[in-house]
C-alpha cells in the first residue's frame, strides 16, 4: 500500500539546512499496522509529515496505493490518506465547534448527506450527539482526541497516519483510545502508520515496527520479535531496557548512539 524509498527530508535553507531524515526506506502492506519508534529528533514525525504532504523539501520516492507522490498532493489523495495529530489541545481549532470541525472536510470535498455522516462519525468514536455543538475547551483530552479521529475518518480514507496519538493523554484514557483505534482498523480495513516514543504502545498496536535514531532507520522487526527481545541492534536493546523502568545498573551502561 505504501512504499517509501530513499527518502531524505531537509529543513531550512542554504547554510542552515538540517537533514532530518536520511535514506529512509520501508514498505507497509494494505491493512497492516506499522509502527515507527524513536526518541526526539529521530525524524519519525518528519517521515509521517512528508508522506502526508506537510513537508515539501524532500527527495526520494513515496508511493501510496500505486500512486507516486510529488511535492503537491492532488485532491483525491486527501480522501485516501488522513492524519491524527499528537496534541489534542492543539489539533482542534479553539473557536470551532465539533460540528464545524467535522463539517469542514465534507464541505471541502463536496460530500452530500452531511447530517447523517456527522452523526455516524460521532457514533463511531463513541460520542453521543450532545457533543456536537461544544467547543474544544468544553471537552476532555480523551474526547478531543476522539473528535480528531472522527475528523480523520469522516473522509473514509484507507490509510491513517497517527502521530503519537496517545502521548498527551492519561493512562486510563490512552487505553480507551488504543482500543478504539484497534477496533476501527479492523472494522474498516485501514492501514496504519503509528509513530510513538513509547515502545509498549507500539508493540501493542502494531504488527511490524521500525526503530529510528537521528534520522536513520536502525532496524525493522515484527512485534513478536520485539516482545521476545530479539532485536539485534544495540540502540533498540537500550530502548527496550529503558522502557522497563528504573534499573540502576542498566542505566550506568547507557551509551550515546550516533
Amino acid at each position: 500500500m505504501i512504499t517509501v524509498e530513499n527518502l531524505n527530508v531537509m529543513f531550512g535553507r542554504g547554510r542552515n539546512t538540517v537533514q532530518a531524515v536520511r535514506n529512509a526506506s520501508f514498505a507497509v502492506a494494505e491493512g497492516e499496522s506499522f509502527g515507527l519508534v524513536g526518541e526526539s529528533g529521530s525524524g519519525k514525525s518528519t517521515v509521517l509529515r512528508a508522506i502526508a504532504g506537510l513537508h515539501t523539501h524532500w527527495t526520494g520516492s513515496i508511493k501510496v496505493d500505486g500512486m507516486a507522490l510529488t511535492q503537491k498532493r492532488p485532491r483525491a489523495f486527501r480522501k485516501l490518506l488522513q492524519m491524527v495529530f499528537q496534541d489534542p489541545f492543539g489539533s482542534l481549532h479553539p473557536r470551532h465547534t465539533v460540528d464545524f470541525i467535522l463539517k469542514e472536510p465534507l464541505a471541502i470535498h463536496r460530500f452530500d448527506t452531511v447530517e447523517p455522516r456527522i452523526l455516524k462519525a460521532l457514533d463511531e468514536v463513541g460520542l453521543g450527539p450532545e457533543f456536537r455543538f461544544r467547543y474544544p475547551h468544553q471537552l476532555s483530552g480523551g474526547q478531543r482526541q476522539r473528535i480528531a479521529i472522527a475528523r480523520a475518518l469522516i473522509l473514509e480514507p484507507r490509510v491513517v497516519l497517527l502521530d503519537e496519538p496517545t502521548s498527551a493523554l492519561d493512562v486510563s484514557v490512552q487505553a480507551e483510545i488504543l482500543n478504539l483505534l484497534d477496533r476501527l482498523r479492523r472494522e474498516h480495513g485501514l492501514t496504519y502508520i503509528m509513530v510513538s516514543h513509547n515502545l509498549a504502545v507500539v508493540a501493542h498496536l502494531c504488527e511490524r515496527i521500525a526503530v529510528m535514531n537521528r534520522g536513520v532507520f536502525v532496524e525493522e522487526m515484527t512485534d513478536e520479535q520485539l516482545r521476545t527481545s530479539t532485536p539485534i541492534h544495540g540502540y533498540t536493546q537500550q530502548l527496550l531496557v529503558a522502557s522497563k523502568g528504573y534499573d540502576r545498573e542498566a542505566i550506568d551502561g547507557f551509551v550515546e548512539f550516533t
Partner: protein
Amino acid sequence: MADTPLLSVEDLRVSFNTPKGVVEAVRGIDFELGQERLGIVGESGSGKSQTGRAILRLISGNGRIEAKKMEFDGIDLLSANERRMRSIRGNRISMIMQDPQYSLNPVMTVGSQIAEAYRVHSKAGRREARDRALDMLETVRIREHEKVYNLYPHEVSGGMGQRIMIAMMLIPEPDLMIADEPTSALDVTVQLQVLALLDDMVRERGMGLILISHDLNLVASFCDRVLVMYGGRIMETLDAKDLHSAQHSYTRGLLECLPQLDGSHGALPVLKRDPAWLEE
C-alpha cells in the same frame, strides 16, 4: 522509622474559587516523609501537583490551603509568615518542575542562574558563587562545565536543562526536594539518567525526595513508597516493591490498562471509574 519524620501532613485541603463555584483540588490527605523517596502518582486532575505546591505554599491567588497539620522539621508551614516561607523555599525545601525551558530564566545564562540561587540564601560574593556553581555543574555530570556555564537556556537540550535545574535546586543543600514531573518532557533514556542523578544526590546528602508523576511504573521502580491519588484523595499507600500486589481497585485498574511489552494484542481492560472512589 523511629525518628521524627521530615515532613508531616495531616488532612491537607486545597481549594480554588472559580467563577463556576468552589473547586476542591486536594480533599484531605495524610502522609509522612522521612529520608526516603516517596512517589505521588495520579492522572491529571488528581491533585498531585497541587499537593507539591501546597507544601511550599505556592498556590496561586484564588486558592486556599487548609490542613490539620503541615509540619516540616518542627516548623509549622501553615502559620509561617511569607518571610519565613521565603527562607525555606529553595533553601530547605527545593522544587524542580517539568520543563526547564519554562522554569529557567531565558535571558540569563544558566551559570549565572545557579550562582544567583546560591547567593540568595548565603552571603557569598560573586566569585565564590561562580566557583560553587561550576562545582555543581560538575556534580550533576555535565561535561565542559565552563562552556555550559555561559550558555542560555534555549541553547541546552532538555536533559541538560533538567540537570541544570537540579544543580540550581541543590546548591543551597536543602533537606527536602519536591520534583513535579521532572522527566515527563524527556526521552526515556534521558529520563532514567536524570533520575539516576537524583538518586545519587538524595543518597549522598541524606535528603528526602517527593517524586510526583503520572508514570506508575517509573515511580514504582524508582521510589521507596508510593501514594496513589485520585480525585484529590489518596486511594492507596504502598511500598514500591508491593505495587503488583496492590489492593485498591483504582491502582489495579491503572496497572491493568497499561499496554505491556510482553502482552498480547487484545483489547486493553478499560478503567471503570467507580464513583465510590470519590467518596472515600
